[in-house]
Structure formats: C-alpha cells, structure tokens
C-alpha cells in the first residue's frame, strides 16, 4: 500500500498526533455517554433495566398505582371521606402483582406481590403515597421494606437525587473546569521545567531543542509564552526558527546554525561518517583563533556507541569537528568523548543547540562550547605574533585611527619598532575603509626592495609595469573613490632607494601631488632615517609622520581582560592586571604573550589566573623569545655595537633592593655613555651615540627618563644575568676599542 495519498498523509500526520486525537475522542465519548445516560435516566425516571419481564411487570404496577390513586381521589370527592378499605374504590386485577392498603387518611400504601422473582429484590417491598387535598397532588416515597432504587419512579426518589439535566451539565462543566485548573496549576507548579522557568526565565534558552514544541504549547496554555520570551530576552523570530529546527532537514539545520554565528556553510562530501558533514568558514569577528570548522549532523538512528567509534577513527586534519546531536540519547556518550581535550571534537548537545538558536549573542555560545571542550591554546583569542587580523583582537590606537580615518586621504609615514603594531594598525585602517563610499584602501606588504614588481604581482601585471600604470589600474578598480595604498615593510625598499637616488619614491610623490593616489608607508630604521636624518630624501615632508610607541594603558587592560572574560576566565585580583601592563611597558604583544602563557598554565576547569601564573609567564621562554632580537636594529654592524653597549650598560644598573625582575632600572645619560667610551679610548662620534639612543627609543627598547634613558619595558632587564652582562659589556667595549684603535692606526 503505497498510494500517493497515503504517503502524503504519512507526511502530514504523525502517529503520536493521531493517537492523541483518538484518545481525546474516546474520552469525550465515554464522558458523554455517562452524562447522557444519567440524563435519560432522570428524564424517564427509570434506572437501568434488569430484565424485560420484570420491567413489564413493574410497568403494569405503576399503571395500577396511577389508576388506584385516581380512583381513590374520585371516591373522596364523592363521599368526602377517605375509605378504610381499598376495595371501596378499587378492584384489583387478577394478576395479583400489587397489594394496596389505606393505613391512614390520605395515604395509600402499595406492595409488590410475591409474583416478582426473588432475585429482582421487588418481592414484598412497599412504597407509600400521600394525597394533598389542598393541591390535589400525590407525594411518593419508599416504604419498608423499600423498593430497590433502580426500580423507583423519578417522583418517588429522595428529593436530593432529583437533579435536572441542566444541573447535571453544570456539574459536569464545573468538574471539567476544576480539573483543568488543577491540571494547569499542577503543571505550572509541579512541572520542574516550568517551575524553573518562573524562577529563572533565561533557562528557557537552555532546554533540549526537541522539547521546545512541548514547551511552546505549555506556555501557550498558561498564557505565559510572550512574557517568558521577553523575560528570557528571546526574539519571537528566533523562537519560531528554533521551533522549526527540530523538523528541518540536515541542510536547513546546518544553515540555521551557521547563520546564527555568521559562518558560511557548504556541504563537504566524501566523509565516511553516517550523516552529513558541512564545512564552515567562520567570521573574522569571532574572538577566537578559529577561521574554519566542520559541522557534523549524524544520521537519525545512529547509536551513540557507533558514533563515537566513527569519530575515534576519523581524521579531520587540523579542523575542529562540531557534532550536533540528533537526540538526547546520544548526548551523554558524545559529550564524554568530546570532553577529552586531546581530540578536536566538540559536542553540540540538545541543550547547546537550543541555546545556540535562542541566545541573543550566539557567538558567545560558540565560544563557551569550544572553550569547554577544546584545549584553550587551540582557540586562544590572543594573537602573539604578526599583524592582528581579527577585529576582536585589536585594542586601542583610537586616536591614531581617527587621525587617518576622519580626514581626507593624505600621505602618512608610520614609524616604529618591530612587533609594536604597525601592521596591525594598517590592517585596522584597511578594515575600517572596507566598503567605504569615498576611499579605496589597499594593503601591500613588500617582501624586498621591489615595490613596482610587488604591486604588479598583486595586480596580475607583468613585473616591469611602470608604477604609474599600476596606480592607474588601482584607480580604475576604485571607481570614483580615492586610492589609499598602505605599503608595509618599506625598509629594504627605502634602503635601495637611498642607494639609487630615490627614483621610485619621486614617482610616489608625484602621484600623490596629482591626487591620483595617497600612501601610507610603514617601516623602522630606514624609514626613520629617510624622514629625520637624510636631508636629500624626497620623503621629507612627503606626509605626516606617525611614530608608534606604547599602547594606551586602558587598551592594554582591555587586552588583558576582555578576551579572557569571553572564555569565562579572569585574574584573581585586578592589581595583577596593572602589574602585568606595567611590567610589559604597555607593549601589546608582550601583554598578549603573558596572557597566552597564563591560559596555557590553567588546569581543566580552572578559571582564575593567579600571581603564580603571572610570575611563571614572566619567566617563560615565550616572553624571553619576544624580548630577544634587539641586537641588530641597524644594517650597520658598528651601529649595532653601540646599541649593545647602551643596552648592557643600562642592564648593569642594579635594581633597588627588594625590587623584582620587572622593576624599573635607573637611567643612563648620553654624557655617561660618552665618558665610558672615552675611558676606553673608543672614538665614536656623538651623533652616532645620539643615533643609537634614537634607534633604541624607536624600537621601544629604551625610553626617556629624566635626563637619561632606561628600559622601556621593565621585563627587558630579566634577560640579563648580573655576571653575564658585565662580561658581555666588556667584550663589546674591547671589540670596539680594538676597532677604534685599528681605524686610528689606519688613518695615520
């Protein structure tokens, strides 16, 4: 039987629904029959008939009784006295079923004769009727021995039993209403789910997704649906969508889940799993280091044990696999498997799916689920190296951004040391200008000195295309918008330009003056030299110089606390955050490294970062690694030697007693350094020393303190050991002294 109509019917009607309707109909039938039966019994005055023969005999008797009553009333009206003997007014039938007595005036007593079978209960039973001469009505009541209640006529029953049909209906209705009130009251008070929702409305977001339709109905019965949704801060449209989720097919489910977190979802074929797998591209706004993931929707009916086996043998590569369970039966087993942080599996159980669909900030739900079930380091929100690519990981620099964003496009020279945030700032500018109606912004990172070839490669043009033609191509792409080209890593380019007479830089200047394109160049020492030292450089007055230094203190605090808070983690005392920020000298990458190391130390379920965690992070290889790499800030080895001497000399200054490794060092003045060099017969020009201080300051290794210079990052001193630094300084001084002597000899 596979008729199309049957198939359609199967599609529209569920068996559970059908059974429910049948049960309701059966209930209505039974209650209806009972009420009707009582009603009819009252209308006819007869109870349930035992047998037809007795019923016929009783019918004759009730007729005889009526006739006897009529006859005695006639006799009374004729003689104005009540007969003492029934024979005076009534002649009994010869069937002998009824006996009559007149025990007193106006009273007739009727007895059922022995003609009735004993099992009927009627034999030798009596009723008594009394005549009221004033009204002319007869009153009937049972006598001794009484007639069975079932055979009594309605007017002979006790007065309390005389309910009218309306009364019966009202009674039934009252009972039904009372039952309904009791049912709903019990539901509201005794159903733990609904009772819990009354106390904590937001728990509505954390119900098993398959239970939502039932809750929807129950809240509707209680007239609490709207108020509950409002109290739980659930949008009506989200609620409707979540209700439809349970009935949706796999594609629709995946799409609904993806849309909630602004992910792009597409089917991923070729998996050996029972069910469907989707590949998700996660949005850059997600405050975690996770750009893609896989969503797995298991096939209906797959046993939990089989699912876990499949997952255990699965190779997902490096991707996180989010498993959205089909029903509550598989939740426990999958959660247990996914809770092992050694794998990359994340279980989205029935409750999590509901929260995902109903929470006002679904990305928070995703973050919380991932943080619970994956190694925190796999998804850490901290980016410790390179330009910040995720908007959620970028903090501060608002004033600098405003200087660029809130003006007409112009030229800028972004100068700063490594890992200070030049690339992050440029990427933030590019993000803010994305889809801008008047500015077309393009980011370009140079990999060597060849600007033209790099831009040509980016625009799919031959490497020898003139830069003017490339800019024209960019302008064509920009339409009516003005072009702002962000050029990162320009030091090698400028070094080569300086050597070859600034030919390309002159082209950039010319393009800028014509208004065809504006530029932001980012670099370190070569850019600084070209802007501040080389008077022949056409880059002087080319644009506004922006020197990048420490991140704002507030932004550092936000960086140290907000990403952690999203994971439900915080520092045990707010003072620790201030200590961290101060020890890092407000360098964003160091703050991120310490927080990242703190996260790595946390045990499973631990949510508080303590002083011990911070101390350990400050002593970590990761931090020391980030602090290293300052020894060659200039391409000139002689410059680097002076840099090292300055750093070692500052590091020699002992910290005050009781101060920790991140304590502030005393300052070194230029004069003191010159004296030190002179004492070792080292001939170095004051300009070279001044340049070294400028370079170290630009690199944020040292900073001005009073008359002298001290380490910009207090933690910087931690990389030097007291005895070692003496030997290192001595070695540098000796080498420079030898070189100086050699140069003087050569000069002579």
């Amino acid at each position: 039987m596979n008729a199309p109509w049957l198939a359609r019917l199967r599609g529209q009607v569920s068996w559970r629904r059908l059974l429910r309707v049948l049960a309701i109909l059966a209930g209505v039938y039974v209650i209806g029959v009972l009420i009707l039966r009582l009603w009819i019994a009252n209308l006819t005055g007869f109870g349930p008939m035992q047998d037809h023969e007795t019923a016929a005999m009783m019918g004759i008797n009730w007729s005889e009784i009526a006739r006897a009553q009529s006859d005695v009333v006639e006799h009374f009206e004729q003689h104005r006295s009540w007969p003492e003997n029934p024979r005076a007014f009534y002649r009994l039938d010869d069937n002998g079923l009824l006996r009559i007595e007149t025990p007193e005036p106006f009273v007739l007593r009727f007895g059922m004769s022995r003609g009735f079978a004993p099992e009927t209960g009627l034999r030798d039973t009596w009723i008594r009727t009394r005549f009221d001469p004033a009204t002319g009505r007869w009153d009937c009541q049972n006598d001794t021995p009484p007639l069975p209640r079932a055979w009594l006529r309605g007017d002979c029953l006790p007065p309390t039993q005389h309910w009218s049909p309306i009364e019966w209906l009202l009674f039934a209705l009252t009972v039904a209403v009372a039952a309904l009130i009791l049912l709903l009251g019990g539901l509201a008070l005794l159903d733990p789910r609904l009772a819990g929702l009354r106390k904590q409305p937001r728990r509505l977001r954390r119900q098993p997704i398959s239970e939502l339709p039932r809750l929807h109905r129950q809240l509707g019965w209680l007239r609490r649906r709207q108020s509950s949704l409002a109290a739980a801060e659930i949008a009506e449209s989200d609620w409707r969508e979540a209700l439809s989720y349970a009935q949706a097919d796999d594609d629709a489910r995946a799409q609904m889940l993806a849309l909630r977190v602004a992910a792009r979802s597409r089917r991923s074929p070729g998996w050996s799993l029972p069910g469907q797998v989707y590949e998700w591209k996660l949005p850059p706004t997600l405050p975690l280091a996770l750009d893609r993931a896989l969503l797995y929707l298991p096939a209906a009916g797959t046993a939990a044990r089989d699912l876990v086996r499949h997952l255990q043998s699965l190779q997902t590569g490096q991707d996180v696999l989010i498993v959205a369970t089909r029903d509550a039966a598989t939740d426990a087993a999958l959660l247990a498997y996914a809770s092992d942080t050694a794998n990359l599996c994340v279980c989205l159980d029935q409750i999590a799916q509901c929260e995902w669909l109903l929470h006002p900030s679904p990305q928070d739900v995703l973050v919380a689920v991932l943080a619970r079930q994956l190694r925190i380091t796999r998804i850490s929100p901290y980016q410790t190296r390179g330009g910040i690519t995720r908007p959620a990981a970028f903090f501060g620099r608002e004033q600098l951004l405003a200087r660029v964003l809130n003006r007409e496009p112009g030229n800028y020279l972004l100068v700063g040391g490594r890992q200070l945030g030049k690339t992050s700032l440029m990427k933030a500018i590019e993000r803010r200008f994305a889809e801008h109606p008047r500015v077309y912004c393009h980011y370009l990172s140079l990999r060597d000195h060849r600007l033209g070839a790099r831009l040509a490669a980016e625009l799919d043009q031959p490497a020898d295309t003139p830069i003017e033609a490339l800019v024209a191509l960019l302008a064509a792409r920009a339409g009516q918008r003005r072009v702002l080209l962000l050029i990162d890593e320009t030091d090698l380019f400028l070094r080569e330009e300086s050597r070859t007479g600034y030919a390309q830089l002159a082209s950039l200047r010319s393009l800028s003056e014509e208004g065809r394109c504006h530029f932001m160049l980012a670099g370190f020492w070569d850019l600084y030299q070209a802007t501040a030292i080389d008077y022949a450089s056409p880059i002087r007055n080319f644009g506004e110089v922006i020197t990048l230094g420490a991140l704002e203190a507030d932004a550092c605090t936000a960086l140290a606390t907000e990403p952690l808070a999203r994971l439900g983690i915080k520092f045990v005392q707010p003072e620790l955050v201030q200590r961290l920020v101060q020890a890092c000298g407000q360098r964003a990458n160091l703050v991120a490294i310490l927080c990242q190391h703190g996260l790595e130390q946390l045990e499973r379920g631990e949510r508080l970062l303590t002083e011990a965690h911070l101390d350990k992070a400050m002593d970590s290889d990761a931090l020391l690694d980030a602090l290293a790499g300052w020894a060659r800030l200039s391409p000139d080895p002689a410059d680097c030697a002076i840099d090292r001497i300055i750093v070692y000399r500052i590091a020699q200054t002992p910290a005050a007693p009781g101060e920790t490794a991140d304590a502030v060092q005393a300052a070194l003045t230029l004069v003191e350094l010159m004296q030190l060099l002179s004492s070792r017969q080292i001939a170095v020009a004051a300009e070279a020393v001044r340049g070294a201080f400028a370079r170290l300051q630009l690199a944020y290794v040292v900073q001005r303190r009073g008359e002298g210079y001290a380490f910009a990052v207090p933690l910087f001193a931690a990389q030097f050991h007291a005895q070692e630094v003496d030997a290192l300084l001595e070695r540098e001084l000796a080498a420079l002294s030898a070189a100086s002597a050699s140069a003087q000899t050569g000069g002579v």
Partner: protein
Amino acid sequence: MTVSDFSSLLNRHMRRIRASAAGVASEIGMSREAVNNWRNGDSMPSRKHRDRVLACAAYLRLSELETNELLAAVGFEPEFPAEHVQELPAASAAVGSIMDRLQQLRPYPILMLLTQAHLGQPPERAAMLAEAQQRYGVDNVLHLQPPFSLHADAAGYFSALALQCGFAEVASDYAFEAALSLRLQSGRPLFCLVSRFEQGDPVLRDVLAGILRSLSEMHSGQLHLLICGGSALADLKYQGGDLSLLNIAASESWPELAAADVAVLADRLGIATFDAARILRLSGGHPLLAPAALALLAEAPARSDAELIQALATHAPLWQSFLPVLSDPAVRSAIAERLGQDRLAVAQPYLLDPLLRRLFWANLVVARRHPDGNWLEWRCAAVQRAGTLIIAELDIGA
C-alpha cells in the same frame, strides 16, 4: 672504505648535477688540483678536511644518507643520525606536539624548529612528513630544500624549488610565488617543511623568505610553515633583523633523549640489558654519546663510571665538535676557565654570549631546568673531560 670508494662516489655525485672540479673547488675553498686528485683517486681528504667534505656534500645537494656515505668513505663519522626504521618514542610525541603548536600559531602558523648538532634538520624527517600527510592530506604537504650553492642564479634556485613542489616552468621568484599562491587557493591548508633554510645563497634565501612571508599574509592561516635549522637559522632570526618571516615565527626546540628513547636505541644495537638512567647521566642525552655509552657498557658491563667517562671523552665525534671551537687560543683559555663550572649561564632562547652560543649549537652544552630557572650546563662529564684533553693536546702542540 677505500680511495676508490670515495672517488667513485664523488664522481657519481658530481656527474649527477654536472658540477665541475673548478666549481666544487671554489665552493669548498680547495684548489682545483686537489679536487681532481680526489676524483682520480690519487689522494683522499686529510683528517682536518672533514668540513670541506661536508661543504662538498652540501654543494652537490646530497641527502643526509648520501652525505653520511661520503663522509664514511673518507673514514669520518657520519654528520647525520642514521635513518631510523623505528622512531624514538620522544620523537613521536615531539612530532605531534610540533604539529599542534603550528595550529596554535594561526593566523601565522610559522614555526622554526631549531636543533643542535647531530640531531638532523629536521630530526625524524620521515616521521614528520608522515604525520603532516596524515593531518593535512598527502597532496597538501611540501618539502622545500633550498639549493646549497652559494653561487646559484635566481632562475636555477627557484626552478629547483618549483621541482620540489611539482610546479612546471618556473623561471623566476615571481613565477614561483604565483605558482605557490595558486596552490594555496584550493582552500585547504598547505603544510610546507623547509629544511636547511639557512644554507645556500643569502640573497636568494632572503627572497624565498619574503615570498613565504608574503604568501602567509595573503593566504592568512593557510600556509603552515615549519622551518628547520640550527645555529645559522637562529642567527638569522635574532640577529638578521630584516627577515620579517622569521620575526613573526615562533621557535621550538627538539626534546632531549628520555629513558624510552634509550630503550629503543639499545634495541637497535641489539643490547638487551642496560641501565637507561645511567646511560642518560653518562652521555648527558647527547645523540651520539648515548649509543656509544650503550655499546661500551655492552662490551664491558663492569666498567666504572670513571672508565666510561674517559672512554666517551675520546669519542671521535665529540672531538670533531670540540676541536674547531678550541682552535683559537683566546677561546681555549676562556673555555678552560669554565670547564670546571657546573652552571655556565642563564639559558635563554638566544644566547647573547657568542662563545656559549657556539658551544650550544655544537651540542656540547645544554639548557636544563632547575627550581631557580633554566641554566646552561655542560652536557656531561665526558664533554668536560674531552675539553680538558683537547686543550692539553693543543697547548702541547702550540
């Protein structure tokens, strides 16, 4: 091995890349006549020419196995550990840990694996590539080995790299970048193992670094780079300054030998009974001294620690590591002062003292964790003893 073994090997390898005697000679700092004499079997490299033979192997682009064969043909100790059929337990865990670490580095998954001498660059290369293939898929794993030659032209350099990646018709750095960029557009992460990065032409190496950095930027999180090397690579990162690729790379070290590794080494050597803790203590976990200690104890189990230290102190590879460092008299006296010290300095990711740095990369000193921090120590008493012996020999010679 005989003279003919060496000459035939040398001829075969030179023919393979069409290298001339003049080219080899210029590359390794020998005369053309000397190289021709080696080729003709008229002479063999002397004991002091191990570095030249090594440079020759590098120029001829020999694999680790071929390099070891060439060295053995002269009678030198191998430069690289023998290819293992069975990987060391610690190595297996380390490979997994390195792959996990790469993931944590998104959106710039660039990791430098720095290894001391005698560990290979990278160690357990086969295991590493196998693990990468399992995680990324066979088609998404590349192994770049930049050409060794210091005089290669850009076209040849990038053509060789392109061949390693399976790209055709690449004749410039931009063509190589374009081909690799196209490969990255598939949407799947691409794992790229770069070994011996620091060797070869510095200008072309910097161009390669620029390309990899640029592609990392353009295909955020897609290009997973594992750059392997030793001393020179560390210098490039911490002293180079201009290589942005290395500036944003995280660095990782190879784990020290553990007791389970000693058990595997013993198994390879066919040694059934051994005391792993004693072997580790005597060898300091040195990759060449540990098997030597195992072999010595297998020969004579009753040897005392002092006897074993003395025997290990005369182990040829140890002398080959120490001798070049001690050749300078000034350095010799500086080291002589320190040979008696238990702790040499605070250990750091990059050692500021050039001498300690040299000793570290030669695998003579090691960073060990103590309650008061990480400290540099001599690897083992045998290393200290070897230093004393060599200094005495050199001082007598002087």
